[in-house]
């Protein structure tokens, strides 16, 4: 049954929203962002910062947009004099005890206190400089979280996250009145596997990530939509880069996957994207040594090796590479009897108790499902055995490789592991931050990620490499883009039929087939 729709106006703009919608959410539909601090769509409503006060016709007092439900015919004015005066008053009060240390604050540039003050606050305070400001020393809350109480506006988002979402209520509001601060249980640490979200939730620079501390100014960062590679959940993330270095990972909201959150494992899982010891050129074996060469030479060599494969090919792949690459790698063996397998590193599962279906998954790979849908198996040990007698063994970015084979080893990867030094050909590829592609998460959801920085040296996206190899084998023109590579996949594999990059957007779509992992 469709939800009952309510019609109301926000600053004169009519909107129709489902019954029960909060005014603050209805306003978004009218293109109006009502300034707010304590409200967050992923947390229970607290209604305490009083920043989102708006005028509602016929109501005797100003109403908080975050706790007021829409009603038929309601007329909301967010920009009336009374509403603006009230919000200006709140902003002034939020700043009287604030240290105004924006120049040394990590939040500066992405601070809602700065933004709304700039937007509609007073240009100067009336708080006498003679009055001392509230002072409390910085506290070490947990492995990655610092609390700077002087900047705190007591919105309690962090308290509510730990209590209602993480279900580990270690934070509280301690003391009363203007002496209040965020307290932590005397015997607890803020070390829940999802605790890092409090840093994102904090609208000011009060909760800081030690990992990001003084690393970059917010305005220096470029943000790129990506997918976390930390496990098979497929959380939507943004990669923040500064001068082509990934410096931070933050959640990107996707109500179907990770809502507004990511776990700390995923949050910290980015340093490898900046590794300096990358393979920067194709390498070919001459005698006992690998020598750098150009792509044409390398591709021709691999094509020669593949042409004589017959029924004896084995592909050992990583479940951290794109669906496009996995598909095009498989296509190289079209018509042959081949074995493809992957292995997945396992870890501990860490659910976010308050969000059903959201967890750091034991399977620490983003694309195991994609590999399965494309015919790669989990029999890694058997595949290793098969590799011993194979004519060609293709290894795709699997660092933990120790292949013994009488055939030729082709290594396609980002870095050169010890086990790949015997390879006949080594082809350098881009990592997840350096290419466009898709992963299929554990629930069969196909999700796109985008390129955040250039690949080093001559490295190329794996889909492009396999596409070129396919062309060299006479399988037609190479794909020019990841979207084109995906389109070929969608035409050829049932599970992906009907999907395309445009359709996937940045929220993803379920694949047609959902096989239990």
């Amino acid at each position, binding site marked *: 049954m469709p939800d009952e729709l309510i019609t109301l106006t926000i600053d004169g703009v009519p909107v129709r929203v489902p019954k029960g919608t909060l005014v603050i959410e209805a306003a978004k539909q009218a293109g109006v962002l009502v300034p707010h601090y304590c409200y967050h769509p992923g947390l229970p*409503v*607290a*209604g*305490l*910062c*009083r*920043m989102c*006060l708006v005028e509602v016709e016929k109501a005797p*007092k*100003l109403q*908080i947009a975050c*706790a007021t439900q829409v009603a038929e015919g309601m007329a909301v004015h967010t920009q009336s004099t009374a509403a603006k*005066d*009230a919000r200006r*008053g*709140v902003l002034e*009060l*939020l700043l*009287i*005890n604030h240290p105004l240390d924006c120049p040394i604050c990590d939040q500066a540039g992405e601070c809602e206190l700065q933004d709304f003050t700039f937007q509609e606050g007073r240009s100067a305070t*009336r*708080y*006498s400089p*003679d*009055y001392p400001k509230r002072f409390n020393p910085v506290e070490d809350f947990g492995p990655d979280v610092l609390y700077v109480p002087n900047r705190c*506006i*007591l919105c*309690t988002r962090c308290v509510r996250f730990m209590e209602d979402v993480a279900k580990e209520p270690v934070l*509280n*509001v301690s*003391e*009363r*009145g*203007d*002496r*209040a601060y965020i307290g932590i249980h005397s015997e607890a640490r803020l070390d829940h596997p999802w605790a890092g979200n409090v840093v994102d939730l904090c609208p000011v620079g009060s909760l800081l990530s030690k990992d990001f501390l003084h690393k970059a100014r917010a305005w220096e960062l470029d943000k790129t939509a990506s997918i976390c590679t930390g496990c098979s959940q497929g959380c939507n993330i943004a990669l923040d880069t500064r001068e082509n270095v990934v410096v931070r990972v933050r959640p990107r909201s996707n109500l179907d996957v990770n809502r507004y959150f990511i776990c700390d494992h995923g949050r910290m899982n980015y340093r490898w994207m900046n590794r300096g010891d990358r393979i920067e050129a194709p390498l070919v074996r001459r005698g006992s040594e690998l020598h750098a060469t150009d792509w044409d030479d390398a591709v021709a060599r691999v094509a020669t090796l593949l042409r004589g494969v017959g029924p004896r090919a084995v592909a050992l792949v990583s479940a951290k590479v794109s669906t496009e690459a996995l598909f095009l790698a498989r296509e190289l063996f079209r018509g042959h009897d081949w074995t493809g397998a992957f292995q997945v590193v396992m870890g501990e599962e860490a659910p976010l108790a308050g969000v059903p279906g959201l967890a750091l998954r034991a399977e620490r790979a983003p694309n195991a499902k994609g590999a399965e849908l494309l015919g790669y198996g989990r029999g890694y040990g058997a595949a290793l055995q098969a590799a011993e007698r194979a004519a060609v063994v293709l290894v795709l970015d699997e660092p933990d490789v120790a292949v013994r084979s009488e055939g030729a080893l082709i290594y396609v990867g980002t870095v050169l592991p010890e086990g790949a030094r015997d390879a006949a050909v080594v082809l350098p590829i881009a990592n997840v931050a350096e290419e466009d592609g898709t992963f299929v998460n554990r629930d069969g959801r196909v999700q796109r990620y985008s390129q955040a920085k250039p690949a080093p040296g001559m490295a190329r996206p794996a889909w492009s490499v396999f596409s070129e190899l396919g062309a060299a084998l006479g399988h037609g023109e190479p794909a020019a883009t990841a979207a084109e590579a995906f389109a070929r996949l969608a035409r050829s594999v049932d599970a992906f039929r009907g999907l395309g990059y445009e359709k996937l957007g940045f929220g993803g779509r379920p694949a047609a087939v959902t096989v239990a992992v």
Partner: protein
Amino acid sequence: MGYPHKPHSRETVVLSKHFGEADARSYKGWVKRGGYRALERALATEPAKLIDTVKESGLRGRGGAGFPTGLKWSFMPREKKKPHYLCVNADESEPGTFKDREIMRWTPHALLEGTAIAAHAIQAEVAYIYIRGEFTEPWAAMEKALTEARAAKVFGGIQIYLHRGAGAYICGEETALMNSIEGKRGNPRIKPPFPAAAGLFGLPTTINNVETLAAVPHILTNGAAWYKGLSLSSPTSTGTKLFSVCGHVQQPGNYEVTMGFPLKDLVYELCGGMRPGHTLKACIPGGSSVPILDRAETESCLLDYEGVVERGSMLGSGGVIVFDESTDMVYQIMRLARFYAHESCAQCTQCREGTAWTTKILERILAGQGTLADLDLLLDLAENMTGKTICVLSDSCAAPVVSGIKKFKSEFEDYIAGRRKPVVVA
């Protein structure tokens, strides 16, 4: 600690009739005085009928807001689908108010009886009486009375529990009180949902003040018409009310008068007037949260819900604070503001920061370092602190500031201009 005064002839003693009688505190003594008969009849009466009777009586909440009690009860679901709760607000913390304390000290069974009747009326099986933590003697009296009454099995199926507060003024706010009973920090909740829909433990709940409930047995015994007849003024302000008078009067204490009694007579007759050689300057008529009345307003004010509003203040809890001409109003207002700054729960920005800032400005004025602009700032802050927060604590801080500056501006100006010796506040 004995009860200080015999009733004045102009008092109408209903609730306070047995104040001072040690025997009335025991179950036997209470029954001897006619106690628990109203409850017995009530338990045999349809809840809806009880609600109608209380509605008819015109009884309004004595905690401060003056909401019609019968109407409040009628908000509870008629058809009971989930457990219902009754909370009794005995967290009397409003500066200048000490009436509930005396009810519990002297007539604990009156409260228990009223509580059980109310619980029956709203179909609650459990009632919590939330008693201010500092009330050691009332606590002991209530505990003893409850033990006796339980043993006498007078409550039918109703369970009554005492719950002790831990020293927060804000826990007298009804939703904060519920949070406190639930074991949470005593923060007021946003409304809606209102307690009758989702209150204590998320279930339908009614919260009533001690004095309100203590009046209920009398209404049932003597009839709604009798209670309604106890009024000298407005038909919407009925019955008797206990006024806790303190300050510069000769005989401070609790005085029970019918609604509509002149404040002037309360001060000059019942309380014996001002200290010798002193004159009335100002009065806070309804506990520290309401606007201050000047002398003319005080002397022309009728003590009922409408009468006090007509003079620009509120009846509130009935805590009457009387000031004579020796009072430093700036200092008094600072003390009130400091109280609210200390007690703010810290949720709403206007209250958390506004009460503290207000206090700082007042302290600075007292120290002789204020400016005339500070007065405008105080008024502007007060405007920002009124009607914009979850509960009314911040409004309560603003009320005396606004009325104080309006009515006693010259005292502020004297400090600012250096005409008055600075007071340095510790």
